[in-house]
Structure formats: C-alpha cells, structure tokens
C-alpha cells in the first residue's frame, strides 16, 4: 500500500475514533481504542516503510501556500512514528480495560485519539504552520486529559502545565520566524537548504531558543517543574502517553532544529547540551528519589531519562563539530535508542502504577505493600520495567546506556581538551544517575509490591482486568526483546542517524552489541544464557549436596518479640532518609519535631515528626517571577481607577504629546 494511503487511512481511523468516543453508549466504549489500536498499526507500517524498507522521504498533502497543512516523512520522522506506534497501541489496549468503568470514558477516548494523532502529525509535519498546529493540538489535548476530572486541583496543575508549554511555544515560534527570516522558507526542507546563508550568531540564538522551547516540553531542569505536577493528576494511560511519548516530542523538535536544520554548530553547543543533560539527569532522579508518590517519582524519573538522552545528543553534537562523524553517529544512536527504550519501559511503569492506583485507590507507596502476591502479573511487568530503567542486563535500558557509555568514553579521541574532559565526566554523571535510579526503583518496587500490605485496600487488592495486563505486556516484552536482540531496534533508527551525521556504524552483529573503535562488546543474550546455565548447574549441585529439604513457614523475625505489624516495616520515607542527609545541600531539608509531654521531660505523650525539602526552583525562580508580575499588574491596574476626569486627561495628554512629537 502507498505511504499516502497508509497516512490517510491512519488519520481517518483516529478521527473516527475520536468522534466515536462521543457516543454515550457503555458497550461502545471499546470502539475508540480499537480504532486507535488499528490506526497506530497503520502508522507503524508507515514508520517501517520510512525507516527500514525504503528510507526515502515522501510528501503527502502538499502545501500550496505558507499557512497550509503539509505532512512529510523522513527517516527521523519514521523512527519516531515507530516509537509512537509501539506505545500508542499498548496504551490503546490498556485503555480498553481501564476505561470500562471510567467516568470520563467518552472525553478520555476523544482526546486520547486526538493526542495520538497530534503526536504523529508533529513528527510528520513538513512546515512551520503544520508543526505549530500539531504541537499546540498536542498541548491542548493533553491539557484536557490532565484536567479530565475537572477538580480545582487538577485544573491548577493543568493551568501550570499549559502556561509552561505555551511559554515554550512562544520560543519555538520565535525561532521558526528567525529561521524563516534568514532562509525565506517556512518548510523544514527549505530552511535546511537555505541555512548556509545564516550567520553563526543567529544560529546560536536559534539553538538556545530551541533548547529552551523544546526543553520545556522535554522537561529539562529547570524547566521541568510542570512534569511532577501534571503527570500525577493525569489518568494512568495518559501519563504513559505523555511521559513515554509527548516529552519525546521535545527531543524530536530539538533534533529536527539543532541537528537537521541548523546542521553543524560550534563545540560549546554540544557541551552545553551535555551539561544540561547531566544536570537534568542528576537533579531529576535526586528529587524523584525522595518522593513517596509513585507517579511523582516516575515523573521525575522521566526528567532523569531525558537528561540521559540529552547526554547522548550533546555528545553527538560535540563530536560532530570536532569532525568525528563515526563517534557522532554512535552517540546519536545511543540517544535515539534510549528514546525508544524509555518510551517502552516508562510506558509500562506508568501503566503498572496506574493499575496499582486503580486497585488500591492511592498513589502513596506508604499505603501499599505486598501487592506482588495480590497482582502477580502487574508486579512482574512492573519489575521488568524497573530492571530496564535501571539499565540492568539483559534488558533494553542496559543496551542503550552501554552505548552511551561507549560514546562518552571514546570522547578522549576528540582533538579539543574540553571535549576530552567533558565526555568522561558525562559518563561519571551517568554512572551516578544509574546508581540513584537503582536505589529509587528498589524503593518503588520493594515498598509497593513487597512486604506486608500497609492498608486494607492493598490487602484486598486483586489483579486488574485482562486488557490492562495485555497492554502492559505489549510494552514489557519488547523491553526484554530489544535488550536481547538490539538489532531490529537499531535498524529502526540507523537511517535517521546516517541522515543526520553522515556516518553509520554497524553496532550489532550475531547477537553481540559491539563498538568497532574499541572492540568492546557485550552480548546480553550470552549473559542470559550463562545465567540460565549457571542456574541449572547450581540447582543440580544443591540437589546433589543438600538433597531435598522442606521449607518451614513462619512470621518474620522480630527480635523474638511476636506480633510484628505492617506498620513496623521500613517505610518509603525511612528508605531514602540517608540520602536526604547525605545530599542535604541539594535538598535543603526542613524538619520540625513537636513533642508533647505528659510530664516533662520524662513521659512523652506524642511526637510529631514532619520533614520536607525545599523545592528549590519553585521557591527561588518561579515564585519570585510570579510575584513580580502580579505586583506590576496591580500597580498598572490603577490606570483604570474609574474616574472619568482621569480618562479625559489621558485623551488630552495623548493628543498633546502626539501634536508635539509626531508632527
């Protein structure tokens, strides 16, 4: 089938899906998601055509004038289309189960279809106008999905999100117009073609605007503040879409502009991006670690992973400007691979968290525990996601992070000293991030799924309906497969990498993930095989030496005193207490302890312990800015004091000034 036909079919499927969601029939609720599932499969094939089968760009819906809709696809777009399709299809399946008894099923179905469609059209848009329309449609749709339950709380979160993203859009519009001004074209092709005439200073401005504008959407620190507000209030399937895909649109836009259109820039661009990435990764996970709300934690972890992706991109830019094409392609491959992987495992994690919250009715880890026995499949998939996001072999996260390590370590080959030093430091940051993430997910999985249930809700919890489980499987299984066989995944993104860096390295041959320049290689499948072999061996050995032994079940050991209650378990707060102390310079924690005495100082009645950290950026960046604007506004408000005489005075003054100065 022709690409155009595929495109049109896909679009119309989503459109119909969106409309069908408005049919207020309960049995009908499955339809929109079925349609979006089929639609995303159509787009998946489109993406495959664009990347694997015939990596050629095509032009559909050609634009007649500047403000016309126009879609086109190339290798980069194709890769993102594939990523979107994988997650979107899974989310569609999950939603079938989730929205069965969902109050806002109709609206959610409508806007979910719109959102997915807008994601596609963002990556496929050929010109400025199409991009902006799709971009804002995406923002609006997600805004309505965040505020779905229309409570004041969610509407505040939604407002904050909308305003942040709108500021970002302002920067994007500005940079588009700068590009247009210097290239006289409004389509990306044309901009790319005419970029040569653009002075470097202007390019730099565009680059910085791109970093800010798209960074807001991608959630780089310090523009990340909307993420931990918006995701937790969003319904799970939407949170998965937003965190898995929507913030990747920021990455896409940044790549499209700073890589594809601007081409090669000075070295410090790359270094800037690396630094931003490192800071985002570290602060993101650090702030996430101490959160006890499952979704907030996952949200922060998204910030972290965007940071990791930016590490790769920055390294690639840096190498490119140092003339190391192959290295640049390696770094970019790592980054794009991590884009795909993060979409998968963050998707499964959010869906899992959604299922958990769906059943226990609370997002707070402190209210959970022992869920693995009650929702085994969900727990298993969540564990898979956690292992992947911690980059533990043999899952996919390991593959992409390993590539990132390789790229950063090879930075010493670049001629400039800064690059030599910056890149291994990026590696160190990555290592620290990895360790922090591991701690975070031990906490997230351990406190939530292990131990004894802390509330009645989690004690009576049960497994979620089949479609939700299947939806998670859609994402969890690729997490493992792409880890074991990186080949297919890499083939999705190689054409894009080649198109943008002019070089490509074959990184994967017969099951080994290897980097030519270093002759370093890993074979996840080999590791898995070895583990399996070892497992068999050790079991046999135990059987031989130890024979069959029975297992005695009893209470956990409580220092000999019986009656250990779930409340005596280690809490999520306690788990990260050491970190709060060690990193107090970052968290700036504040604790207040109120002790009530029966008889001072011996008999304590009650001790209230409260501890909170300072939200640095909110307190020292956002709030002052807001206060300033409000203050100015309230001053300006005096202009309209209600006195007619004053108004007449304005007329007279204006007139006289004009008479004096304008004539």
């Amino acid at each position, binding site marked *: 089938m022709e690409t155009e036909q595929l495109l049109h079919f896909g679009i119309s499927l989503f459109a119909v899906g969106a409309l069908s969601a408005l049919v207020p029939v309960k049995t009908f609720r499955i339809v929109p998601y079925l349609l979006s599932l089929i639609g995303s499969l159509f787009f998946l094939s489109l993406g495959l055509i664009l990347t694997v089968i015939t990596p050629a760009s095509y032009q559909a819906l050609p634009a007649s004038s500047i403000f016309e809709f126009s879609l086109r696809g190339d290798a980069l777009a194709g890769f993102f289309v594939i990523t979107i399709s994988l997650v979107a299809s899974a989310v569609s399946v999950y939603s079938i189960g989730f929205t069965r008894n969902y109050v806002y099923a109709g609206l959610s179905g409508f806007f979910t279809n719109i959102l997915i469609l807008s994601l596609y059209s963002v990556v496929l848009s050929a010109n400025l106008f199409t991009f902006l329309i799709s971009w804002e449609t995406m923002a609006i749709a997600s805004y309505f999905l965040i505020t779905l339950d229309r409570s004041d709380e969610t509407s505040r979160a939604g407002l904050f999100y909308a305003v942040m993203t709108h500021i970002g859009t302002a920067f994007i519009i500005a940079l588009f117009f700068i590009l247009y001004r210097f290239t006289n074209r409004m389509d990306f092709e044309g901009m790319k073609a005419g970029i040569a005439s653009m002075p470097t200073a202007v390019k730099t401005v565009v680059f910085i605007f791109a970093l800010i504008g798209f960074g807001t959407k991608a959630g780089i620190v310090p523009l990340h503040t909307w993420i931990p507000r918006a995701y937790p209030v969003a319904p799970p399937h939407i949170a998965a879409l937003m965190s898995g895909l929507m913030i990747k649109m920021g990455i896409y836009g940044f790549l499209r502009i700073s890589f594809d259109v601007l081409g090669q820039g000075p070295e410090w661009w790359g270094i800037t991006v690396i630094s931003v990435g490192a800071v985002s990764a570290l602060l993101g996970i650090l702030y996430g670690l101490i959160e006890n709300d499952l979704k907030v934690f996952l949200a922060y972890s998204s910030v972290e992973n965007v940071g990791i992706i930016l590490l790769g991109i920055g390294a690639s830019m840096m190498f490119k400007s140092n003339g190391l094409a192959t290295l640049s392609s390696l770094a970019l491959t790592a980054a794009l691979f991590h884009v795909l992987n993060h979409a998968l495992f963050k998707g499964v994690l959010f869906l899992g968290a959604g299922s958990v919250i769906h059943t226990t009715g609370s997002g707070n880890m402190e209210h959970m525990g022992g869920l693995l026995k009650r929702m085994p499949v969900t727990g298993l998939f969540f564990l898979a996601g956690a292992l992947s996001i911690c980059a533990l072999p043999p899952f996919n996260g390991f593959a992409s992070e390993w590539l990132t390590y390789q790229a950063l370590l090879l930075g010493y080959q670049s001629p400039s000293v800064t690059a030599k030093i910056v890149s291994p430091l990026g590696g160190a940051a990555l290592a620290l991030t990895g360790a922090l993430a591991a701690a975070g997910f031990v906490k997230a999985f351990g406190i939530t799924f292990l131990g004894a249930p802390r509330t009645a809700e989690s004690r009576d919890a049960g497994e979620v309906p089949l479609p939700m489980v299947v939806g998670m499987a859609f994402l969890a299984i690729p997490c493992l497969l792409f880890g074991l066989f990186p080949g297919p995944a890499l083939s999705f993104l190689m054409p894009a990498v080649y198109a943008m860096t002019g070089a490509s390295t074959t990184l994967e041959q017969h099951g080994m993930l290897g980097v030519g320049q270093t002759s370093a290689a890993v074979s996840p499948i080999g590791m898995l095989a070895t583990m399996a072999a070892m497992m068999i061996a050790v079991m046999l050995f135990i059987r031989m030496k130890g024979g069959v032994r029975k297992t005695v079940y009893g209470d956990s050991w409580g220092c000999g005193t019986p009656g250990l209650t779930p409340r005596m378990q280690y809490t999520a707060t306690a788990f990260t207490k050491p970190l709060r102390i*060690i990193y107090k310079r970052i968290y700036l924690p504040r604790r207040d302890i109120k002790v009530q005495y029966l008889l001072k100082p011996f008999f304590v009645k009650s001790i209230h312990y409260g501890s909170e950290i300072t939200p640095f950026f909110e307190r020292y960046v956002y709030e002052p800015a807001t206060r300033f604007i409000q203050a100015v506004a309230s001053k300006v408000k005096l202009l309209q004091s209600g006195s007619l005489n004053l108004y007449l005075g304005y007329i007279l003054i204006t007139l006289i000034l004009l008479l004096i100065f304008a004539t």
Partner: protein
Amino acid sequence: MGYLQFLIIILFSPLVNGVIKKVKAYMQGRIGPGVLQPYYDLLRLLKKDMVVSTETSWIFKATPYIVFTATATAAVIVPVVSTASPFSMMGDVIALIYMLALARFFMALGGLDAGTGFGGEGSSREMTVAILVEPMMMLALFTAAISAGSTDIVRIATVHPAAFSPSHLLALTAFIVAIVAETGRVPVDNPDTHLELTMIHEGMILEYSGRYLALMEWAHYMKQMILFTLAIDIFFPLGIAQSGNPAVLATAVAVYVAKVTGIALLMALVESTRAKMRFFQLPSLLGGAFVLAFLSLVTHIMMGK
C-alpha cells in the same frame, strides 16, 4: 583452560575469604578457624531446612538464585589467569559492574520482602553505599579504559602490562576503597556482626536460612574475588597468560595466586587496623575516593599517561 578459568573464582572464592579471616585472626592474636571453614559452613547450610516468612513473595525465593547466577556470570566475564578467555567477549567491564548491580538490586529486594525493619534498613543502606561507590569505581575504571582505548577487560589487561603512571596510582587507590566498600568490610561495614545498628549486608540477608543463605554467602565470596581479580587485571596484569601453553599458564596461575593473596592480606590489614566508621561519615571517605578517581582521570587526560 581459557574456557574454564571462571571455575577458579567460583570454587576458590570461599577459600580466599577463609584466608582473610585467618590472617585477621592472627593479627588479633587469635588462632581463628581454618581456612576451609567457609566450605564447611556452605555445606552445612545446604543440608539445613529453610525458614521462610509468610509475608514473602516469590522474589524472596528467587533472589538467592538470581544473585548467585548474576555474580557467577560476572565471574565468567572477568579473565582470571589467561587473556585467552573467549567468554569475556560476552561482556566488558561495564557489563561486569552492571551484573553485580543486578545482583545487588535483587538482594535489596530480598531484604525488603520479609517486611521487617532490619531488612529494609539493610537494603536502604546498601543502596546508599552503592550510590556513593559505583560512580567512583566507574570513574576509576574509565581512567584505565581510556588509557587502554577500550572497556574490554582483556584489552585493558593486554595493552599495558605494568604502567604505574600517576593516574593509575590514583585510580588504584580509589578502586581499593571501592573494593573495601563493595565487599562490606571495615571501615564501611562489619562482616562479622549481627548488631542491627551496624548491619548493612548482614541486615539484608537476615531472613535467609538454609541453602538460600548458602547461595547468598557464596555469591558474596565470589563478588569479593571478582573484584580482586578485576583489580589485578586492570592495575597490575603483569604475568597474566597471553597464550594457552601449559608453562605460561602455570606461571600465570602462580602469579595470580600471589597477587590475590597480596590483596587478601591488604584487606585483612585494613580491617584489623581500622575501626568501623559511623554510617554518615562514609560520604567523606568515599567522596574523597571519588575525588582521587576524578584527579586520576584529569591527570591522565592532561599528561596523556
């Protein structure tokens, strides 16, 4: 031989631990148990029944096996006496570290699964220490990897037999601290205590008994020996067999034994001369080591060696 050298680690790691214990005993003026004691312990544990908490899930039972197999896989990756080790193509130094991380991940989960205070405490502290140690260790390894131009351990071991450049010494120092921390020894952790306030590793495996405990302990011994071997391969690989002929191998084995014993002695020395640190003093120690590793990297890049 090259295929089977990982067996050295799997089989002899308890012995190394025994040796360290023995030396410590001597230094403290005791006779101490025999060097084979760890083997007896393992066998005894294998023959015992297991007591499992009713709160636990399958994670609790799976953890020992996963920990053991993951560590064993790491052992397969690291070349011991010969660089002709085909299995080490399976992974490089990063893969090795992450294999150990996988083991740690599950160990921490196992600690949380029983729902007791001690397990959680142990997991929390273990992960905290890991956060402090892992980047430092990585950085130290980066220095070696960069000077060798590869993260492949065999490559590193072959490229520079004995390059005691300043950067290497710095990196080595950092790495030794890392080993101390990772193997849960004084001053970071006390392997011989069950006093809850000081437990880290012991706290995590407190609920384990029988063969589960045996696997955990064994995995711990292996991890220790893997790290020793890694240090040897990376920082003084001189004498490691480049070819497969028996004479070379024999010498290589001898040299290896000597080196391992040396490190074991060092560990024993450190443990018996240092007092355990308070938990929240650790950042200063490990942070210092991190600075060393960082300096090593910078010096390497600046001085080119």
